[in-house]
Protein backbone atom coordinates (compact mmCIF):
# COMPACT_ATOMS: atom_id res chain seq x y z
CA UNK A 1 0.00 0.00 0.00
CA UNK A 2 1.22 3.47 -0.76
CA UNK A 3 -1.38 6.17 -0.78
CA UNK A 4 -0.22 9.74 -0.53
CA UNK A 5 -2.52 12.43 0.71
CA UNK A 6 -1.79 16.13 0.91
CA UNK A 7 -4.03 18.26 3.10
CA UNK A 8 -3.94 22.05 2.95
CA UNK A 9 -0.25 22.00 2.08
CA UNK A 10 1.46 25.40 1.87
CA UNK A 11 5.02 26.56 1.52
CA UNK A 12 6.32 30.10 1.60
CA UNK A 13 9.89 31.11 0.93
CA UNK A 14 10.61 34.42 2.61
CA UNK A 15 7.13 35.81 2.05
CA UNK A 16 6.70 34.33 -1.41
CA UNK A 17 4.08 31.60 -1.54
CA UNK A 18 5.37 28.70 -3.64
CA UNK A 19 2.54 26.31 -2.79
CA UNK A 20 -0.85 27.54 -1.60
CA UNK A 21 -3.24 25.40 0.42
CA UNK A 22 -2.89 22.37 -1.81
CA UNK A 23 -4.99 19.28 -1.19
CA UNK A 24 -5.09 16.08 -3.19
CA UNK A 25 -4.83 12.33 -2.85
CA UNK A 26 -2.67 9.98 -4.89
CA UNK A 27 -3.92 6.43 -4.84
CA UNK A 28 -1.86 3.29 -4.42
CA UNK A 29 -0.28 2.21 -7.69
CA UNK A 30 -1.33 5.34 -9.51
CA UNK A 31 0.96 7.18 -11.93
CA UNK A 32 0.32 10.84 -11.21
CA UNK A 33 2.05 13.61 -13.09
CA UNK A 34 2.35 17.08 -11.60
CA UNK A 35 2.64 19.42 -14.52
CA UNK A 36 2.83 23.16 -14.98
CA UNK A 37 5.12 25.95 -16.11
CA UNK A 38 8.33 26.59 -14.16
CA UNK A 39 7.71 28.23 -10.81
CA UNK A 40 4.26 26.70 -10.41
CA UNK A 41 5.21 24.90 -7.21
CA UNK A 42 5.28 21.36 -8.58
CA UNK A 43 8.87 20.64 -7.59
CA UNK A 44 8.38 22.24 -4.18
CA UNK A 45 5.37 19.97 -3.66
CA UNK A 46 7.42 16.92 -4.59
CA UNK A 47 10.25 18.00 -2.32
CA UNK A 48 7.82 18.38 0.55
CA UNK A 49 6.55 14.84 -0.04
CA UNK A 50 10.17 13.67 -0.09
CA UNK A 51 10.91 15.53 3.13
CA UNK A 52 13.51 17.96 1.80
CA UNK A 53 11.30 20.95 2.49
CA UNK A 54 9.19 21.47 5.58
CA UNK A 55 5.66 22.60 4.76
CA UNK A 56 4.75 26.02 6.17
CA UNK A 57 1.28 24.63 6.82
CA UNK A 58 -0.68 21.51 6.12
CA UNK A 59 -0.12 17.78 6.38
CA UNK A 60 1.43 15.05 4.29
CA UNK A 61 0.02 11.58 4.85
CA UNK A 62 1.46 8.34 3.57
CA UNK A 63 -0.94 5.45 4.09
CA UNK A 64 -2.93 7.53 6.52
CA UNK A 65 0.07 8.39 8.68
CA UNK A 66 1.25 11.98 9.03
CA UNK A 67 4.87 12.06 7.94
CA UNK A 68 5.60 15.78 8.29
CA UNK A 69 8.18 15.15 10.99
CA UNK A 70 9.79 12.06 9.49
CA UNK A 71 13.23 12.22 7.92
CA UNK A 72 13.31 11.54 4.16
CA UNK A 73 14.91 8.14 4.72
CA UNK A 74 12.07 7.04 7.00
CA UNK A 75 9.30 7.74 4.52
CA UNK A 76 9.77 4.66 2.34
CA UNK A 77 10.33 6.69 -0.81
CA UNK A 78 12.62 6.53 -3.78
CA UNK A 79 13.55 9.62 -5.70
CA UNK A 80 15.10 10.28 -9.10
CA UNK A 81 16.50 13.75 -9.57
CA UNK A 82 16.66 15.97 -12.61
CA UNK A 83 20.45 16.00 -12.51
CA UNK A 84 20.54 12.23 -11.76
CA UNK A 85 22.69 13.10 -8.70
CA UNK A 86 24.92 10.03 -8.93
CA UNK A 87 27.80 9.91 -6.47
CA UNK A 88 30.70 10.93 -8.72
CA UNK A 89 33.36 9.21 -6.61
CA UNK A 90 31.69 5.81 -6.61
CA UNK A 91 31.41 3.28 -9.41
CA UNK A 92 28.04 2.54 -10.94
CA UNK A 93 27.90 -0.66 -8.90
CA UNK A 94 28.65 1.20 -5.66
CA UNK A 95 26.06 3.79 -6.57
CA UNK A 96 23.36 1.20 -7.12
CA UNK A 97 24.41 -0.72 -4.04
CA UNK A 98 24.41 2.30 -1.75
CA UNK A 99 20.81 2.11 -0.58
CA UNK A 100 21.15 -1.59 0.21
CA UNK A 101 24.30 -0.98 2.21
CA UNK A 102 22.46 1.65 4.22
CA UNK A 103 19.89 -1.04 5.00
CA UNK A 104 22.72 -3.33 6.18
CA UNK A 105 21.90 -6.02 3.67
CA UNK A 106 24.51 -8.83 3.50
CA UNK A 107 27.02 -8.45 0.68
CA UNK A 108 26.01 -11.58 -1.23
CA UNK A 109 22.36 -10.58 -1.33
CA UNK A 110 23.34 -7.04 -2.30
CA UNK A 111 25.36 -8.23 -5.25
CA UNK A 112 22.48 -10.37 -6.44
CA UNK A 113 19.94 -7.57 -6.17
CA UNK A 114 22.25 -5.14 -7.97
CA UNK A 115 22.61 -7.55 -10.89
CA UNK A 116 18.88 -8.13 -11.02
CA UNK A 117 18.09 -4.43 -11.20
CA UNK A 118 20.96 -3.75 -13.60
CA UNK A 119 19.42 -6.25 -15.99
CA UNK A 120 16.02 -4.68 -15.57
CA UNK A 121 17.18 -1.25 -16.73
CA UNK A 122 19.92 -2.61 -19.00
CA UNK A 123 23.01 -1.17 -17.30
CA UNK A 124 24.77 -4.45 -16.50
CA UNK A 125 27.63 -3.52 -18.83
CA UNK A 126 28.20 -0.24 -16.95
CA UNK A 127 28.55 -1.57 -13.42
CA UNK A 128 32.32 -1.09 -13.18
CA UNK A 129 32.40 2.33 -14.80
CA UNK A 130 32.45 5.67 -13.05
CA UNK A 131 29.41 7.92 -13.44
CA UNK A 132 31.36 10.44 -15.53
CA UNK A 133 32.05 7.70 -18.10
CA UNK A 134 28.31 7.25 -18.65
CA UNK A 135 26.28 9.20 -21.19
CA UNK A 136 23.30 11.27 -20.07
CA UNK A 137 20.81 8.52 -20.80
CA UNK A 138 22.96 5.86 -19.15
CA UNK A 139 23.43 8.03 -16.06
CA UNK A 140 19.68 8.46 -15.74
CA UNK A 141 19.22 4.68 -16.05
CA UNK A 142 21.76 4.20 -13.29
CA UNK A 143 19.86 6.71 -11.17
CA UNK A 144 16.69 4.74 -11.83
CA UNK A 145 18.44 1.51 -10.86
CA UNK A 146 19.78 3.08 -7.68
CA UNK A 147 16.23 3.96 -6.69
CA UNK A 148 14.63 0.71 -7.88
CA UNK A 149 17.00 -1.50 -5.97
CA UNK A 150 15.71 -0.36 -2.58
CA UNK A 151 12.16 -1.32 -3.62
CA UNK A 152 10.41 1.81 -2.39
CA UNK A 153 6.61 1.83 -2.40
CA UNK A 154 6.48 5.35 -3.78
CA UNK A 155 8.64 6.72 -6.58
CA UNK A 156 9.20 10.44 -6.82
CA UNK A 157 10.60 11.62 -10.13
CA UNK A 158 11.65 15.24 -10.47
CA UNK A 159 11.88 16.10 -14.18
CA UNK A 160 14.08 13.06 -14.69
CA UNK A 161 14.22 13.39 -18.45
CA UNK A 162 14.57 17.10 -18.97
CA UNK A 163 18.36 17.03 -19.38
CA UNK A 164 18.21 14.45 -22.19
CA UNK A 165 17.78 14.88 -25.92
CA UNK A 166 14.46 14.19 -27.61
CA UNK A 167 15.13 10.62 -28.74
CA UNK A 168 16.53 9.49 -25.40
CA UNK A 169 13.67 11.19 -23.66
CA UNK A 170 11.14 9.16 -25.64
CA UNK A 171 13.09 6.00 -24.95
CA UNK A 172 13.32 6.57 -21.21
CA UNK A 173 9.72 7.71 -21.09
CA UNK A 174 8.73 4.31 -22.38
CA UNK A 175 11.06 2.79 -19.80
CA UNK A 176 9.29 4.67 -16.97
CA UNK A 177 5.95 3.51 -18.30
CA UNK A 178 7.13 -0.08 -18.48
CA UNK A 179 8.57 0.04 -14.95
CA UNK A 180 5.31 1.38 -13.59
CA UNK A 181 3.40 -1.42 -15.23
CA UNK A 182 5.80 -4.08 -13.98
CA UNK A 183 6.20 -2.76 -10.45
CA UNK A 184 2.65 -1.52 -9.90
CA UNK A 185 3.96 1.06 -7.43
CA UNK A 186 2.85 4.63 -6.85
CA UNK A 187 4.67 7.05 -9.16
CA UNK A 188 4.64 10.81 -8.64
CA UNK A 189 6.29 12.47 -11.58
CA UNK A 190 7.02 16.17 -12.00
CA UNK A 191 7.49 17.72 -15.41
CA UNK A 192 6.88 20.91 -17.31
CA UNK A 193 6.48 18.94 -20.53
CA UNK A 194 2.82 18.44 -21.38
CA UNK A 195 3.64 15.66 -23.81
CA UNK A 196 5.38 13.67 -21.07
CA UNK A 197 2.38 14.23 -18.82
CA UNK A 198 -0.06 13.11 -21.51
CA UNK A 199 1.82 9.93 -22.39
CA UNK A 200 2.74 8.77 -18.88
CA UNK A 201 -0.01 9.74 -16.51
CA UNK A 202 -2.97 7.82 -15.18
CA UNK A 203 -3.94 11.16 -13.79
CA UNK A 204 -2.59 14.64 -14.36
CA UNK A 205 -2.52 17.40 -11.78
CA UNK A 206 -2.11 20.75 -13.49
CA UNK A 207 -0.55 23.42 -11.31
CA UNK A 208 -0.03 27.12 -11.66
CA UNK A 209 1.15 29.74 -9.15
CA UNK A 210 1.19 27.19 -6.34
CA UNK A 211 -2.36 25.99 -6.88
CA UNK A 212 -4.04 23.02 -8.50
CA UNK A 213 -5.87 24.23 -11.58
CA UNK A 214 -7.29 20.95 -12.80
CA UNK A 215 -7.05 17.25 -12.06
CA UNK A 216 -8.06 14.50 -14.41
CA UNK A 217 -7.05 11.81 -16.83
CA UNK A 218 -4.98 12.97 -19.80
CA UNK A 219 -8.01 12.75 -22.10
CA UNK A 220 -10.22 14.69 -19.69
CA UNK A 221 -7.66 17.44 -19.42
CA UNK A 222 -7.17 17.48 -23.15
CA UNK A 223 -10.84 17.45 -24.11
CA UNK A 224 -12.33 19.50 -21.30
CA UNK A 225 -9.80 22.06 -20.15
CA UNK A 226 -11.20 23.97 -17.21
CA UNK A 227 -9.78 27.30 -18.29
CA UNK A 228 -7.79 29.19 -20.89
CA UNK A 229 -4.47 28.31 -19.24
CA UNK A 230 -5.03 24.54 -19.33
CA UNK A 231 -6.45 24.73 -22.85
CA UNK A 232 -3.37 26.56 -24.01
CA UNK A 233 -0.88 24.41 -22.07
CA UNK A 234 -1.88 20.98 -23.36
CA UNK A 235 -1.74 19.75 -26.91
CA UNK A 236 0.78 20.06 -29.68
CA UNK A 237 0.00 21.93 -31.86
CA UNK A 238 -1.79 23.89 -29.18
CA UNK A 239 -5.47 24.77 -29.20
CA UNK A 240 -6.65 27.55 -31.46
CA UNK A 241 -7.63 30.40 -29.18
CA UNK A 242 -9.30 33.38 -30.80
CA UNK A 243 -10.08 36.53 -28.82
CA UNK A 244 -13.38 38.22 -29.56
CA UNK A 245 -16.78 38.86 -28.07
CA UNK A 246 -20.15 37.21 -27.70
CA UNK A 247 -22.98 39.18 -29.18
CA UNK A 248 -26.70 38.46 -29.15
CA UNK A 249 -28.09 37.51 -32.57
CA UNK A 250 -31.45 36.46 -33.97
CA UNK A 251 -30.57 32.72 -33.95
CA UNK A 252 -29.02 32.89 -30.47
CA UNK A 253 -25.55 33.99 -29.35
CA UNK A 254 -22.87 34.65 -31.90
CA UNK A 255 -19.10 34.87 -31.53
CA UNK A 256 -17.41 37.71 -33.31
CA UNK A 257 -13.66 38.25 -33.80
CA UNK A 258 -11.74 40.46 -36.19
CA UNK A 259 -11.31 37.57 -38.63
CA UNK A 260 -14.67 35.84 -38.53
CA UNK A 261 -18.10 35.67 -36.97
CA UNK A 262 -20.04 32.47 -36.30
CA UNK A 263 -23.24 31.30 -34.74
CA UNK A 264 -22.34 29.53 -31.51
CA UNK A 265 -23.30 25.87 -31.05
CA UNK A 266 -26.54 25.15 -29.20
CA UNK A 267 -24.93 24.62 -25.80
CA UNK A 268 -23.75 28.24 -25.80
CA UNK A 269 -27.08 29.72 -26.90
CA UNK A 270 -27.65 31.33 -23.53
CA UNK A 271 -24.10 32.63 -23.11
CA UNK A 272 -23.94 36.16 -21.83
CA UNK A 273 -22.69 38.87 -24.17
CA UNK A 274 -19.22 40.25 -23.56
CA UNK A 275 -15.55 39.61 -24.17
CA UNK A 276 -14.65 35.96 -24.64
CA UNK A 277 -12.13 33.62 -26.21
CA UNK A 278 -13.12 30.82 -28.53
CA UNK A 279 -11.05 27.68 -28.40
CA UNK A 280 -11.00 24.71 -30.72
CA UNK A 281 -8.32 22.07 -31.22
CA UNK A 282 -6.76 21.93 -34.70
CA UNK A 283 -8.11 18.41 -35.27
CA UNK A 284 -11.64 19.75 -34.81
CA UNK A 285 -11.33 22.36 -37.53
CA UNK A 286 -12.66 20.98 -40.83
CA UNK A 287 -12.01 22.27 -44.30
CA UNK A 288 -15.25 23.24 -46.04
CA UNK A 289 -18.68 23.60 -44.45
CA UNK A 290 -21.08 26.43 -43.97
CA UNK A 291 -20.08 27.98 -40.65
CA UNK A 292 -19.10 31.16 -42.39
CA UNK A 293 -15.41 31.10 -41.49
CA UNK A 294 -13.15 31.99 -44.37
CA UNK A 295 -9.46 32.51 -43.69
CA UNK A 296 -6.43 32.88 -45.96
CA UNK A 297 -3.77 30.14 -45.81
CA UNK A 298 -0.45 31.40 -44.47
CA UNK A 299 1.65 28.25 -44.25
CA UNK A 300 1.35 24.53 -44.94
CA UNK A 301 3.46 22.18 -42.84
CA UNK A 302 3.44 18.51 -43.85
CA UNK A 303 4.40 16.31 -40.87
CA UNK A 304 4.21 12.99 -42.71
CA UNK A 305 0.83 11.47 -42.00
CA UNK A 306 -0.77 14.76 -40.94
CA UNK A 307 -0.46 18.18 -42.45
CA UNK A 308 -0.80 21.36 -40.44
CA UNK A 309 -2.45 24.26 -42.23
CA UNK A 310 -1.82 27.67 -40.69
CA UNK A 311 -4.43 30.35 -41.37
CA UNK A 312 -4.24 34.06 -40.87
CA UNK A 313 -6.78 34.93 -38.17
CA UNK A 314 -5.75 38.58 -37.78
CA UNK A 315 -4.10 37.87 -34.42
CA UNK A 316 -0.64 36.98 -33.17
CA UNK A 317 -1.51 33.30 -32.95
CA UNK A 318 -2.14 31.50 -36.19
CA UNK A 319 -5.31 29.48 -36.59
CA UNK A 320 -4.38 25.88 -37.28
CA UNK A 321 -6.21 22.99 -38.89
CA UNK A 322 -5.00 19.40 -39.22
CA UNK A 323 -5.66 17.54 -42.40
CA UNK A 324 -4.57 14.09 -43.37
CA UNK A 325 -2.54 13.53 -46.49
CA UNK A 326 -2.58 17.05 -47.86
CA UNK A 327 0.53 18.16 -49.69
CA UNK A 328 2.11 21.58 -49.89
CA UNK A 329 1.02 22.20 -53.44
CA UNK A 330 -2.65 21.31 -52.92
CA UNK A 331 -3.61 24.80 -51.73
CA UNK A 332 -1.69 27.87 -52.92
CA UNK A 333 -0.65 30.20 -50.06
CA UNK A 334 -3.00 33.15 -49.63
CA UNK A 335 -6.05 31.25 -50.86
CA UNK A 336 -9.10 31.91 -48.68
CA UNK A 337 -10.47 28.59 -47.44
CA UNK A 338 -13.87 27.92 -45.88
CA UNK A 339 -13.68 26.22 -42.50
CA UNK A 340 -16.11 24.76 -40.03
CA UNK A 341 -15.75 23.76 -36.40
CA UNK A 342 -16.96 20.54 -34.75
CA UNK A 343 -19.82 22.04 -32.71
CA UNK A 344 -19.45 19.86 -29.61
CA UNK A 345 -15.70 20.49 -29.52
CA UNK A 346 -15.86 24.25 -29.33
CA UNK A 347 -14.84 25.85 -26.02
CA UNK A 348 -15.56 29.34 -24.79
CA UNK A 349 -13.60 31.11 -22.09
CA UNK A 350 -14.81 34.29 -20.40
CA UNK A 351 -12.76 37.42 -19.82
CA UNK A 352 -11.17 35.83 -16.73
CA UNK A 353 -10.18 32.72 -18.68
CA UNK A 354 -12.81 30.45 -17.08
CA UNK A 355 -14.61 27.93 -19.24
CA UNK A 356 -18.18 28.97 -20.01
Amino acid at each position, binding site marked *: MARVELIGLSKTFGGIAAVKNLSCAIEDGEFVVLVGPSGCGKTTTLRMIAGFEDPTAGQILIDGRVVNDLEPRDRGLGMVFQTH*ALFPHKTVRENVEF*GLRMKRMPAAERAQRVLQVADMVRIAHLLDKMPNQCSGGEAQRVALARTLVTQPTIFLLDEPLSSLDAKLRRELRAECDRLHQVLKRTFIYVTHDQEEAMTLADRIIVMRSGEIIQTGSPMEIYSNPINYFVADFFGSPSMNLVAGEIVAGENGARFRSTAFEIVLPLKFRSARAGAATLGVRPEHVMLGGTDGIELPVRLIEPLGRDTLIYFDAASQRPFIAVSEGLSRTDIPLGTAVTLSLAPDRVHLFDADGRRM
Partner: protein
Amino acid sequence: MRRSHRRRISAGVRYLLLSLWGIIAFFPIFWMISTSFKPDTQWFAWPPVYFPHPLTLANYLNVWFGAEEYAATQYAISSQKPLVSLLNSSIIAGISTLLSVLFGAVLAYGVSRHRILSETRMFQLLILRMIPPIVIVAPLSLYYSALGLLDSRTGLVLIYFLTTLPYAVWMTKSFIDEVPREIEQAAEILGASRWRTLFEIVLPLIRSGLVATFLFILILTWSEYLLALILTKTDVTTLPIELSKYQGTTEGRVYGRQAALAVGITIPLMIVGLIIRKHLARGFSFGMVRR
Protein backbone atom coordinates in the same frame (compact mmCIF):
# COMPACT_ATOMS: atom_id res chain seq x y z
CA MET B 1 53.36 42.65 -39.05
CA ARG B 2 53.74 45.66 -36.79
CA ARG B 3 51.26 44.16 -34.40
CA SER B 4 53.09 40.86 -34.04
CA HIS B 5 56.30 42.84 -33.61
CA ARG B 6 54.80 44.83 -30.78
CA ARG B 7 53.43 41.71 -29.18
CA ARG B 8 56.87 40.11 -29.23
CA ILE B 9 58.43 43.15 -27.55
CA SER B 10 55.78 43.23 -24.85
CA ALA B 11 56.26 39.52 -24.23
CA GLY B 12 60.00 40.12 -23.95
CA VAL B 13 59.53 42.90 -21.42
CA ARG B 14 57.12 40.76 -19.47
CA TYR B 15 59.56 37.87 -19.29
CA LEU B 16 62.39 40.19 -18.29
CA LEU B 17 60.39 41.67 -15.41
CA LEU B 18 59.19 38.27 -14.27
CA SER B 19 62.71 36.88 -14.40
CA LEU B 20 63.96 39.76 -12.29
CA TRP B 21 61.18 39.17 -9.81
CA GLY B 22 61.95 35.46 -9.84
CA ILE B 23 65.56 36.16 -8.94
CA ILE B 24 64.54 38.47 -6.09
CA ALA B 25 62.06 35.94 -4.79
CA PHE B 26 64.29 32.90 -5.03
CA PHE B 27 67.55 34.46 -3.95
CA PRO B 28 66.92 33.98 -0.19
CA ILE B 29 66.18 30.31 -0.75
CA PHE B 30 69.30 29.93 -2.86
CA TRP B 31 71.31 31.80 -0.20
CA MET B 32 69.94 29.58 2.56
CA ILE B 33 70.90 26.42 0.70
CA SER B 34 74.27 27.79 -0.33
CA THR B 35 75.11 28.95 3.20
CA SER B 36 74.15 25.61 4.67
CA PHE B 37 77.04 24.03 2.73
CA LYS B 38 79.64 26.70 3.59
CA PRO B 39 82.49 26.27 6.04
CA ASP B 40 82.37 28.90 8.78
CA THR B 41 85.05 31.04 7.16
CA GLN B 42 82.77 31.79 4.24
CA TRP B 43 79.61 32.71 6.21
CA PHE B 44 80.50 36.40 6.41
CA ALA B 45 83.09 36.53 3.65
CA TRP B 46 83.36 39.68 1.54
CA PRO B 47 82.97 39.61 -1.41
CA PRO B 48 80.20 37.09 -0.74
CA VAL B 49 80.77 33.47 -1.68
CA TYR B 50 77.83 32.34 -3.78
CA PHE B 51 78.91 28.79 -4.45
CA PRO B 52 80.68 27.34 -1.41
CA HIS B 53 84.05 25.81 -2.07
CA PRO B 54 84.85 23.37 -0.64
CA LEU B 55 81.33 22.03 -0.02
CA THR B 56 80.95 20.86 3.55
CA LEU B 57 78.30 18.84 5.33
CA ALA B 58 79.62 20.00 8.69
CA ASN B 59 76.67 22.30 9.33
CA TYR B 60 74.16 19.51 8.81
CA LEU B 61 76.07 16.91 10.76
CA ASN B 62 76.59 19.27 13.64
CA VAL B 63 73.10 20.69 13.79
CA TRP B 64 71.07 17.58 13.18
CA PHE B 65 73.25 14.88 14.63
CA GLY B 66 75.26 16.91 17.17
CA ALA B 67 78.51 15.57 15.71
CA GLU B 68 81.02 17.06 18.10
CA GLU B 69 84.00 17.02 15.77
CA TYR B 70 82.21 19.56 13.61
CA ALA B 71 81.14 21.79 16.46
CA ALA B 72 81.99 25.38 15.88
CA THR B 73 83.74 25.73 19.18
CA GLN B 74 83.95 29.45 19.24
CA TYR B 75 80.15 29.71 19.30
CA ALA B 76 78.26 29.01 22.45
CA ILE B 77 74.90 27.61 21.45
CA SER B 78 72.02 27.40 23.86
CA SER B 79 70.30 24.41 22.30
CA GLN B 80 71.39 21.25 20.62
CA LYS B 81 68.25 19.20 20.19
CA PRO B 82 66.74 19.95 16.79
CA LEU B 83 65.58 16.37 16.31
CA VAL B 84 63.43 16.68 19.40
CA SER B 85 62.11 19.96 18.03
CA LEU B 86 61.41 18.27 14.72
CA LEU B 87 59.40 15.64 16.55
CA ASN B 88 57.57 18.32 18.56
CA SER B 89 56.82 20.39 15.49
CA SER B 90 55.56 17.36 13.61
CA ILE B 91 53.25 16.29 16.41
CA ILE B 92 51.99 19.77 17.24
CA ALA B 93 51.53 21.05 13.70
CA GLY B 94 50.23 17.70 12.44
CA ILE B 95 47.62 17.15 15.14
CA SER B 96 46.45 20.76 15.35
CA THR B 97 46.12 20.95 11.55
CA LEU B 98 44.19 17.68 11.38
CA LEU B 99 41.85 18.82 14.14
CA SER B 100 41.41 22.18 12.52
CA VAL B 101 40.54 20.74 9.10
CA LEU B 102 38.27 18.06 10.53
CA PHE B 103 36.30 20.34 12.84
CA GLY B 104 36.43 23.13 10.28
CA ALA B 105 34.88 20.86 7.64
CA VAL B 106 32.10 19.69 9.96
CA LEU B 107 31.38 23.26 11.03
CA ALA B 108 31.52 24.46 7.43
CA TYR B 109 29.04 21.75 6.47
CA GLY B 110 26.67 23.05 9.12
CA VAL B 111 27.12 26.58 7.87
CA SER B 112 26.75 25.66 4.21
CA ARG B 113 23.75 23.35 4.56
CA HIS B 114 21.97 24.26 7.75
CA ARG B 115 23.02 27.88 8.18
CA ILE B 116 24.12 27.36 11.76
CA LEU B 117 26.09 30.59 11.43
CA SER B 118 24.73 33.69 9.72
CA GLU B 119 26.75 35.64 7.16
CA THR B 120 27.57 38.15 9.90
CA ARG B 121 28.78 35.44 12.26
CA MET B 122 30.94 33.97 9.52
CA PHE B 123 32.50 37.36 8.95
CA GLN B 124 33.01 37.83 12.67
CA LEU B 125 34.77 34.49 12.72
CA LEU B 126 37.26 35.83 10.22
CA ILE B 127 37.61 39.12 12.07
CA LEU B 128 38.64 37.14 15.15
CA ARG B 129 41.70 36.20 13.16
CA MET B 130 42.56 39.84 12.66
CA ILE B 131 43.34 40.32 16.34
CA PRO B 132 47.15 40.40 16.46
CA PRO B 133 48.39 37.39 18.46
CA ILE B 134 50.66 39.71 20.44
CA VAL B 135 47.54 41.22 22.03
CA ILE B 136 46.30 37.95 23.42
CA VAL B 137 49.53 36.17 24.11
CA ALA B 138 50.33 37.71 27.50
CA PRO B 139 46.93 37.06 29.11
CA LEU B 140 46.87 33.69 27.41
CA SER B 141 50.10 32.69 29.08
CA LEU B 142 48.48 33.47 32.45
CA TYR B 143 45.53 31.22 31.66
CA TYR B 144 47.87 28.57 30.37
CA SER B 145 49.92 28.77 33.52
CA ALA B 146 46.81 28.34 35.63
CA LEU B 147 45.61 25.44 33.50
CA GLY B 148 48.99 23.78 33.50
CA LEU B 149 49.21 24.02 29.72
CA LEU B 150 52.32 26.15 29.63
CA ASP B 151 55.31 24.51 27.98
CA SER B 152 53.25 21.52 26.83
CA ARG B 153 52.44 20.05 23.44
CA THR B 154 48.74 19.95 24.35
CA GLY B 155 48.79 23.69 25.00
CA LEU B 156 50.25 24.49 21.60
CA VAL B 157 48.00 22.01 19.79
CA LEU B 158 44.99 23.63 21.43
CA ILE B 159 45.91 27.21 20.57
CA TYR B 160 46.98 26.36 17.01
CA PHE B 161 43.76 24.44 16.48
CA LEU B 162 41.65 27.33 17.74
CA THR B 163 43.47 30.06 15.87
CA THR B 164 43.44 28.27 12.52
CA LEU B 165 39.85 27.03 12.76
CA PRO B 166 38.38 30.17 11.12
CA TYR B 167 40.57 29.61 8.03
CA ALA B 168 39.56 25.97 7.90
CA VAL B 169 35.87 26.86 8.11
CA TRP B 170 36.11 29.49 5.43
CA MET B 171 38.12 27.40 3.02
CA THR B 172 36.18 24.17 3.39
CA LYS B 173 32.86 25.99 3.22
CA SER B 174 33.70 27.28 -0.24
CA PHE B 175 34.32 23.69 -1.33
CA ILE B 176 31.19 22.28 0.30
CA ASP B 177 29.11 25.01 -1.35
CA GLU B 178 30.19 23.51 -4.68
CA VAL B 179 28.75 20.07 -3.95
CA PRO B 180 25.27 19.86 -5.47
CA ARG B 181 22.68 19.41 -2.75
CA GLU B 182 20.86 16.80 -4.80
CA ILE B 183 23.78 14.40 -4.41
CA GLU B 184 23.42 14.64 -0.66
CA GLN B 185 19.67 14.35 -0.81
CA ALA B 186 19.99 11.27 -2.96
CA ALA B 187 22.12 9.71 -0.22
CA GLU B 188 19.70 10.85 2.44
CA ILE B 189 16.64 9.37 0.78
CA LEU B 190 18.51 6.12 0.20
CA GLY B 191 18.81 5.83 3.95
CA ALA B 192 22.11 7.49 4.90
CA SER B 193 22.22 9.46 8.15
CA ARG B 194 23.52 13.04 8.22
CA TRP B 195 26.92 11.95 9.52
CA ARG B 196 27.09 9.13 7.04
CA THR B 197 26.27 11.53 4.22
CA LEU B 198 28.94 13.94 5.43
CA PHE B 199 31.70 11.36 5.77
CA GLU B 200 30.84 9.06 2.88
CA ILE B 201 29.58 11.51 0.28
CA VAL B 202 30.46 15.14 0.97
CA LEU B 203 33.96 14.92 2.40
CA PRO B 204 35.28 12.46 -0.22
CA LEU B 205 33.91 14.75 -2.91
CA ILE B 206 35.83 17.72 -1.56
CA ARG B 207 38.99 15.80 -0.67
CA SER B 208 41.12 17.94 -2.96
CA GLY B 209 39.82 20.99 -1.14
CA LEU B 210 40.48 19.39 2.23
CA VAL B 211 44.04 18.60 1.16
CA ALA B 212 44.59 22.19 -0.01
CA THR B 213 43.21 23.47 3.29
CA PHE B 214 45.40 21.02 5.17
CA LEU B 215 48.57 22.25 3.52
CA PHE B 216 47.63 25.90 3.97
CA ILE B 217 47.07 25.43 7.69
CA LEU B 218 50.06 23.14 8.10
CA ILE B 219 52.28 25.92 6.76
CA LEU B 220 50.79 28.32 9.32
CA THR B 221 51.22 26.02 12.29
CA TRP B 222 54.58 24.63 11.17
CA SER B 223 56.17 28.06 11.06
CA GLU B 224 54.31 29.77 13.92
CA TYR B 225 56.75 31.59 16.16
CA LEU B 226 55.26 34.12 18.58
CA LEU B 227 52.78 31.91 20.43
CA ALA B 228 55.33 29.11 20.63
CA LEU B 229 57.92 31.51 21.99
CA ILE B 230 55.73 32.79 24.82
CA LEU B 231 53.82 29.62 25.65
CA THR B 232 56.81 27.29 25.87
CA LYS B 233 59.99 27.42 27.87
CA THR B 234 62.37 24.50 27.82
CA ASP B 235 60.38 21.28 27.76
CA VAL B 236 58.70 21.79 24.41
CA THR B 237 60.56 23.53 21.62
CA THR B 238 59.35 23.78 18.06
CA LEU B 239 61.58 24.21 15.03
CA PRO B 240 61.03 27.97 14.54
CA ILE B 241 62.04 28.51 18.18
CA GLU B 242 65.01 26.22 17.72
CA LEU B 243 66.09 28.29 14.77
CA SER B 244 66.28 31.44 16.89
CA LYS B 245 68.63 29.79 19.35
CA TYR B 246 71.55 29.57 16.96
CA GLN B 247 73.03 32.76 18.09
CA GLY B 248 76.63 33.01 19.16
CA THR B 249 77.48 34.75 22.40
CA THR B 250 80.25 36.81 20.91
CA GLU B 251 80.15 36.68 17.17
CA GLY B 252 76.47 37.09 16.25
CA ARG B 253 74.50 34.53 14.36
CA VAL B 254 75.74 31.10 13.50
CA TYR B 255 74.68 31.36 9.89
CA GLY B 256 75.81 28.05 8.49
CA ARG B 257 74.15 26.07 11.27
CA GLN B 258 71.00 28.14 11.03
CA ALA B 259 70.86 27.62 7.28
CA ALA B 260 71.26 23.87 7.67
CA LEU B 261 68.46 23.89 10.22
CA ALA B 262 66.26 26.07 8.03
CA VAL B 263 66.71 23.71 5.07
CA GLY B 264 65.62 20.90 7.36
CA ILE B 265 62.55 22.86 8.41
CA THR B 266 61.58 23.54 4.80
CA ILE B 267 62.00 20.04 3.46
CA PRO B 268 59.09 18.36 5.29
CA LEU B 269 56.67 20.98 3.94
CA MET B 270 58.02 20.42 0.45
CA ILE B 271 57.62 16.67 0.79
CA VAL B 272 54.03 17.07 1.96
CA GLY B 273 53.40 19.47 -0.91
CA LEU B 274 54.83 17.00 -3.44
CA ILE B 275 52.84 14.08 -2.10
CA ILE B 276 49.57 15.97 -2.40
CA ARG B 277 50.35 18.09 -5.45
CA LYS B 278 47.77 16.29 -7.58
CA HIS B 279 45.07 17.37 -5.14
CA LEU B 280 46.48 20.86 -4.74
CA ALA B 281 46.05 21.79 -8.37
CA ARG B 282 42.45 20.62 -8.27
CA GLY B 283 41.76 21.96 -4.80
CA PHE B 284 42.87 25.45 -5.62
CA SER B 285 40.96 25.51 -8.88
CA PHE B 286 37.65 24.85 -7.05
CA GLY B 287 34.55 23.62 -8.87
CA MET B 288 35.91 20.10 -8.99
CA VAL B 289 32.57 18.34 -8.70
CA ARG B 290 31.28 17.22 -12.05
CA ARG B 291 27.57 17.74 -12.30
